[in-house]
């Protein structure tokens, strides 16, 4: 899309949308929101950037390879918190029973494993949405020169 107004507004809006998404993820245990919605907001902001410019500019900000690595690391962070509880001597994904400090309810750094798990889910959902959109848009154009 070759429209200078859309480009300028989307570049100006991008950090605010991402900041709001990060706020929704990090306050998931205190207010409505959580990993899924915050991750979708961050992913939608990157998709907006890639739509208003073009795919090359979008992949310059966050390359395909980085988003695949981020996606796997989100799930690994989640499963790693579960395995940590097993190492501490309780069930898979135990929180308070495993001895993880839960802090004062109402503070930002409270509720132990919930915050870390929400952060992992947020990373995972954001990179999943970005990767899905990139691969749906680009298709197999990169391979066509080789085979045809």
């Amino acid at each position, binding site marked *: 899309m070759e429209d200078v107004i859309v480009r300028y507004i989307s570049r100006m809006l991008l950090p605010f949308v991402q900041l709001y998404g990060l706020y929704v993820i990090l306050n998931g245990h205190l207010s409505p929101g959580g990993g*899924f919605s915050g991750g979708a907001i961050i992913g939608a902001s990157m998709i907006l950037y890639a739509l208003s410019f073009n795919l090359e500019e979008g992949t310059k900000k966050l390359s395909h390879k980085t988003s695949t690595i981020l996606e796997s690391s989100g799930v690994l962070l989640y499963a790693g918190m579960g395995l940590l509880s097993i190492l501490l001597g309780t069930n898979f994904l135990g929180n308070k029973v495993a001895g993880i400090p839960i802090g004062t309810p109402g503070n930002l750094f409270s509720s132990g494993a919930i915050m870390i798990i929400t952060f992992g889910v947020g990373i995972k959902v954001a990179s999943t949405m970005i990767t899905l959109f990139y691969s749906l848009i680009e298709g197999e154009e990169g391979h066509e020169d080789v085979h045809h």
Partner: protein
Amino acid sequence: MSIIEILSRLHQNSFYFFAIILFIIGFHTMLTHDNLIKKIIGMNIMDTSIFLFFVAIGYVRGGRAPILEPGTTQTYINPVPSALILTGIVVGVSITAYALSLIVKLYKHYGTIDAEEIMRLRGGEPR
């Protein structure tokens, strides 16, 4: 049961009733349209109507959203359907994404996204 009684029951359960109407509309879209993207949108309408039904089950009259305020006693709504529906929304989005990738692949292969047209190109009997 008289007609007045039935209408008043439907008024009390208005969310359930409209969820059923939306379910039927989505099902009709999915069954009668040949365009595959229309079928996907109809499936999404069916999804959201069932979510509306579930969230309406969890509502308690005069209840507040389940964000606790320590030290006060208040009525909260039922948090279990909300937690289940969060899972359902994400699964619906992933199903939509996979179906769209299949549609893009079908368009590359056959040059159309019409189900009847694809059936005809494959040499099958048109309905």
